[in-house]
């Protein structure tokens, strides 16, 4: 049914560097990836242990903060009237945004046949899952009565009560829930063949059993592959509109409200662009040290990083356009409350946050117009971290400054975080990195099967490949 040759790379040879550096064959790819996950527990690298100790300590801080919150109440945070939503929602939107790159790389780049994605997609997908877990934590714990959070789900109950489906928060429950589920399925499904590889290479009984259970008895039979590819393609096609919808729905939390500064139609595309922007920045932030540490430089090359930097430049500029457009519309729309909100953002008491946001998100990525900056590891690392900071501040600016001054001046107030706010945010990074380090240590960090499928066949140059059906636009191709 399909005929695109696995080794047929879209670009003409010589146009761009190959996807992988150096001499590689199927066995070497397997070896490079699996040896990260394979050392027995006693031979865990020291660097990993130190990182894990640090991350899990920070995770404990998160646990302590959540326990403190549950026992005392939402009052432990800085939330107040009129800023009823403070850092927890800022953190939620921040993490959901980060969680966009993974599925984007996996799904959209897959549909666009961007083969360079194969080296980084597993990594980015894992990042997505963990970021969405961090994101899901915040709306869960930010409600006043956590033990009743299940009221948000349409569960038949003895009181015959149902949620209000008109509320954007309920849309959010469904959107983030669906996104987390589908991302998990997508990630796991793509990982089944690689888990089977680990199973077949396992030497200890425990590993063999564990990987055996999670690989579900995958044999690599072509009848399985045939259906698997179809399913993977369908999941990619489903995840693409989903990834665009999730941040749109998150933006509805703001856009559907009538608060000046929230109630704008530009929010869905602006949020989606911002999410991709922050997500890619996070992938770069994590990928650069990880490829160094785990010796994946041959698989994740500078070419991959450069491609991501281009996406960062493009989306960062889109976000900058949105900032400008917000200002323009607030003036052009002639709504006095709206006009004031934006003047207040840039020149009011929160001006510092606004200008941090603009410099980090709009100005910093502009260095990526230069190839030197795009391919320089230190520069991209600095810019990526700036973008992460800037995107957190973007959510802060949207959430907090809009709320702090709305219609009635007597109700205006200034939000200041408490130490619990700060430690909870830091703690969420602990959760993220703990999960991430566990992933790096025990799971296949690179989609081996996909990389192999995108490799030129050993011993066969491109010229030899028959063009069999290469022009046929069968969607199953591109692997």
């Amino acid at each position, binding site marked *: 049914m399909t005929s695109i040759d696995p080794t047929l790379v879209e670009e003409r040879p010589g146009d761009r560097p190959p996807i992988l550096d150096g001499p590689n064959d199927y066995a070497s790819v397997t070896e490079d990836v699996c040896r990260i996950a394979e050392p027995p527990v006693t031979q865990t690298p020291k660097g990993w242990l130190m990182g894990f100790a640090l991350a899990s300590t920070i995770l404990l801080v998160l646990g302590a903060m959540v326990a403190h919150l549950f026992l005392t109440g939402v009052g432990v945070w800085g939330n107040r009237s009129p800023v009823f939503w403070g850092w927890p929602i800022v953190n939620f939107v921040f993490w959901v945004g980060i969680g966009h790159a993974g599925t984007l790389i996996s799904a959209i780049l897959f549909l666009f046949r961007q083969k360079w994605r194969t080296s980084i997609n597993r990594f980015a997908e894992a990042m997505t899952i963990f970021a969405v877990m961090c994101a899901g934590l915040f709306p869960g714990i930010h409600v006043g009565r956590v033990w009743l959070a299940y009221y948000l789900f349409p569960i038949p109950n003895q009181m015959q009560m149902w*949620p209000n489906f008109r509320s954007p928060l309920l849309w959010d429950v469904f959107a983030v829930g669906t996104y987390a589920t589908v991302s998990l399925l997508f990630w796991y499904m793509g990982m089944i063949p690689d888990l089977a590889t680990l199973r077949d290479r396992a030497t200890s009984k425990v590993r063999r059993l564990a990987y055996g259970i999670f690989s579900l008895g995958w044999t690599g039979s072509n009848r399985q592959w045939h259906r698997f590819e179809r399913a993977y393609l369908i999941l990619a096609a489903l995840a693409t509109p989903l990834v665009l919808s999730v941040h749109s729905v998150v933006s509805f939390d703001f856009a559907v409200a009538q608060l000046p500064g929230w109630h704008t139609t530009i929010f869905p595309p602006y949020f989606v662009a911002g999410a991709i922007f922050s997500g890619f920045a996070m992938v770069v932030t994590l990928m650069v040290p990880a490829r160094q540490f785990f010796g994946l430089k041959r698989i994740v090359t500078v070419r991959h990083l450069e491609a991501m930097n281009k996406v960062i430049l493009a989306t960062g500029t889109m976000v900058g356009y949105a900032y400008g457009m917000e200002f323009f519309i607030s003036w052009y729309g002639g709504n006095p409350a709206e006009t004031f909100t934006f003047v207040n953002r840039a020149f*009011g008491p929160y001006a510092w946050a606004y200008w941090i946001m603009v410099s980090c998100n709009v100005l910093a990525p502009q260095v990526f117009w230069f190839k030197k900056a795009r391919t320089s590891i230190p520069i991209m690392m600095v810019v990526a971290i700036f973008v992460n900071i800037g995107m957190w501040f973007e959510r802060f600016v949207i959430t907090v400054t809009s709320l702090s001054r709305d*219609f009635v001046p007597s109700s205006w107030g200034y939000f200041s975080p408490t130490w619990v706010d700060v430690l909870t945010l830091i703690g969420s990074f602990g959760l993220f990195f703990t999960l991430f380090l566990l992933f790096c240590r025990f799971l296949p960090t690179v989609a081996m099967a996909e990389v192999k499928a995108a490799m030129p066949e050993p011993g066969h140059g491109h010229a030899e490949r028959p063009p069999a059906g290469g022009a046929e636009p069968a969607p199953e191709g591109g692997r």
Partner: protein
Amino acid sequence: MRGFEVGAPEDAAPAEVVNGRLELCFIPDSRVWDGRFANNAWLQETPDFMTKLVWDNAALVSPATAEALGLRNGQVVTLEQGGRSLTCAAYVMPGQARGSIGIALGYGRGAAGRVGGDASAEVAPVGFDANRLRNSAAPDAAGGLKVVATRDRYKFATTQDMFAIDAVGMAEREKRVTGQHDLVREASLEEYRADPAFAKYVSVPLLDLWERPDVAVRHAWGMTIDLGKCTGCNACVVGCQAENNIPVVGKEQVSRGRIMHWIRIDRYFAGDRDDPRVVNQPLACQQCENAPCEQVCPVAATTHNQDGLNDMVYNRCVGTRYCANNCPYKVRRFNYLDFHDDLDKHEPDLDLKKMAYNPEVTVRWRGVMEKCTYCVQRIQAGRIKAKREGNREVKDGEVVTACQQACPTEAIVFGDLKQPRSRVSELAAAPRAYQMLAELNVDPRTRYLARVRNPDPALPKAEVKHDKH
């Protein structure tokens, strides 16, 4: 005391502000009077009608005096007069006479009790004891006051202007607040005569996207508040607190923006900083017909009932606080902590405290949103009474809300808008009636009656100055 200057020629040169020759005025406090009510937590947490300070008094200085002396809001100062001195904190108060510093009596008590200060039980006194500067020779006012500024800052808790406002915010507040078409609408008598319905102005045409459901099946409870009658006395605030089991949260929580009062009185200054006009606007839940809080609640914890009231279902509320964000009036209050937690403990006077609660009103626990209900328990009581008495109509004036009952000037009128001859219907139809923020098309049930100013022409600066219009 304040007001001495009334009758002084308007063009008199402003008094020079000379440190060491300042005037000190002792003011009875609007809440604790001379200190006799200092142990009443409800009164301690009532915001002063001018300063909006709670749990404190302060050395009030006018903006011009503060500038001349180099004082800032919250700066700790030592007042020295006649060989006595008191360390307290300065609070910049527009309208305070130039060169005169006012300080309220009734604070800094060491024998008030567990709330207001008790030296024997190591309960710190509330505020600063002005009596330390007072003697029998000058019980009301004294001259020759010297202010020594320190570098320390004191943290006040206020319910309004909670932070030193910047130029951007100040300009916008000026623009929004007073005028014929603003949040607090007022006009001079001539303007009112020229256009009695000046307050009806709505900046945009109001269109509904859908047909409204018929919500007022039985009654349409509504309220009018006459801004011309409101003096900002706070009686409604305390009346509501007593009726609706509203907790006292304490100075720390107030300064963190968590005061729980269901009705607040917004106080705005307009005009000259040193001689401003003052307007007061009581603000509680407006009971909007198109309540913006309702649609955003994911669990339908706030909905409209058959009387068109915007109900709050405490037991259903999970505390997302989305409703409060979407309320343009910011009248919703959230229980950030268990503000009644002292009642869980076994204290000697627990029974006494419990008796202060209205049995008809649920005591809310932490994590729950609350707001003005139009005293729904009183509405229900009135309806049940009418039903028992021959299933008759609820008579106009039969249901009285707590704020209405407490209001000494009868500025608040409550009743059924479905009865065409009820007082509230007639007032709501009056030319002065307007809906606050009507341009949002939330269609509030509470209507304000615009203020018409008609000061005695013999008073200096009698003419109403409008900065715009």
